[in-house]
């Protein structure tokens, strides 16, 4: 037993302490968190816009049709573009999207991190959009009618009545999407970004011992996800204030 521990300790120092290789892990972790953070922001922004356009179209198309005019065509067009976006993004693997972004669309850029943020953010936006839209759809139409009957405009009804209720409903699903995104960024190594996974793999390549670096990387991902889950659960508890 004692020998086993001594062996473990030796492996640990060999993999992480020698040559300050722990710094790779720290750097990689920083890169992973950076990419995830900004991709989440971009994903939410895109998701809100797309979900808003799609539900506005679904809700107002008949009324606009009756009224006529250019509004209907304009809304129809952006709705169509949103549908194309959702179909393409959700129909292709994220690694392929990342490669296309890096080697074709932004071939002249050498800022891999920025390209990764864009690729993962645009990818996540499609899923977040559908989560939000599902949330909006799940709210009883009576809520919408109550707001409109008081004289609130479509936008005001959305902002004060529908969206706040939607957020509470989608929070668990949204949280899940962020967890997925965090782990999805582990493919960033495909385009030469040194994220957490890549860092672990580099150490493995240097020390020829797989166990320590890969298990360490796995544990770090796990710890972040558990922390995040705990934070969201706290938040959910606070939001649940209104349904006793």
């Amino acid at each position, binding site marked *: 037993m004692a020998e086993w521990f001594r062996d473990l300790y030796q492996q640990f120092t060999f993999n992480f302490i020698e040559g300050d290789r722990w710094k790779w892990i720290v750097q990689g972790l920083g890169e992973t968190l950076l990419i995830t953070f900004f991709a989440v922001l971009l994903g939410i922004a895109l998701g809100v816009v797309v979900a808003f356009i799609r539900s506005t179209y679904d809700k107002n198309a008949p009324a606009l049709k009756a*009224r006529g005019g250019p509004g209907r065509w304009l809304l129809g067009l952006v709705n169509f573009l949103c549908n194309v976006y959702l179909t393409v993004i959700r129909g292709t693997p994220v690694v392929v999207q990342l490669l296309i972004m890096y080697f074709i669309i932004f071939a002249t850029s050498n800022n891999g991190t920025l390209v990764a943020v864009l690729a993962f953010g645009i990818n996540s936006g499609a899923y977040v959009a559908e989560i939000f839209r599902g949330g909006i759809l799940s709210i009883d139409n009576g809520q919408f009618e109550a707001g*409109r*009957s008081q004289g*609130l405009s479509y936008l005001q009804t959305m902002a004060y*009545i529908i969206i706040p*209720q939607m957020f509470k409903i989608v929070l668990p699903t949204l949280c899940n999407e962020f967890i997925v995104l965090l782990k999805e960024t582990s493919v960033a190594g495909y385009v030469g970004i040194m994220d957490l996974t890549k860092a672990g793999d580099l150490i493995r390549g240097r020390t020829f011992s797989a166990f320590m670096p890969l298990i360490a990387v796995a544990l770090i991902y796990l710890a972040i996800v558990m922390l995040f889950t705990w934070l969201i659960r706290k938040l959910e508890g606070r939001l649940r204030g209104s349904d006793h």
Partner: protein
Amino acid sequence: MTTDSPVLISVNNLQKSFGNLQVLRGVTLDIHKGDVVVVIGPSGSGKSTFLRTLNLLELPTGGSITFEGVDITDRRVNINRHRQKMGMVFQQFNLYPHKTVLDNMTLAPRKLLKTPRATAEKLAMELLERVGLADRAKAYPAQLSGGQKQRVAIVRALCMKPDVMLFDEPTSALDPEMVGEVLDVMKELARSGMTMVVVTHEMGFAREVATNALFLDEGVIVEQGPPEELFTRPQSDRLKSFLAKVL
């Protein structure tokens, strides 16, 4: 009294179709200030649809609705402005579940009339006092009984100081023992001179406070008049058979 006061809502040949289904087939009616109009009729007769077209929650497919001198079916009219003067109470209450009773009531006045929070809350508290719910101001809708919810929904609409109140079967979703408390609030409102249009199955309420009763069937007004007369001396066979079922 009815005909002496000015016309508030003038409905002319109102029609509404859902696809091929024609729900309203030409309803014409004047609602005067201070009227309490009760709309009765079998289910599927179009009475809820009629009420919901009055504030354009359902867009009419024909005819016109003139409210306070403005044809609100005109596409150029900003309906949101006119809806502020038409309070509506729904069968399912439709309180905002994420807001307290007080916030439910003050949302629209604060956002639309730019009423300062303190002023809006003062009015809301006065109204809650009137319906005996002042102690529930900080409660959330989920903490209220059905009857309490509907009383809050009524005073929420009153916070906008409307010129007319529309009620869409306000007691149909309530447990029987809670119907009375809601009807009492509505009766008091009627006595205070509020113009009301009420879709209901409560014949007792209709008899007691309505100035005018409409019997709607298959999208047209089959009979109308003072409720006492309508209920005791129905002319048409359709109203006779309807009353035989509900009275």
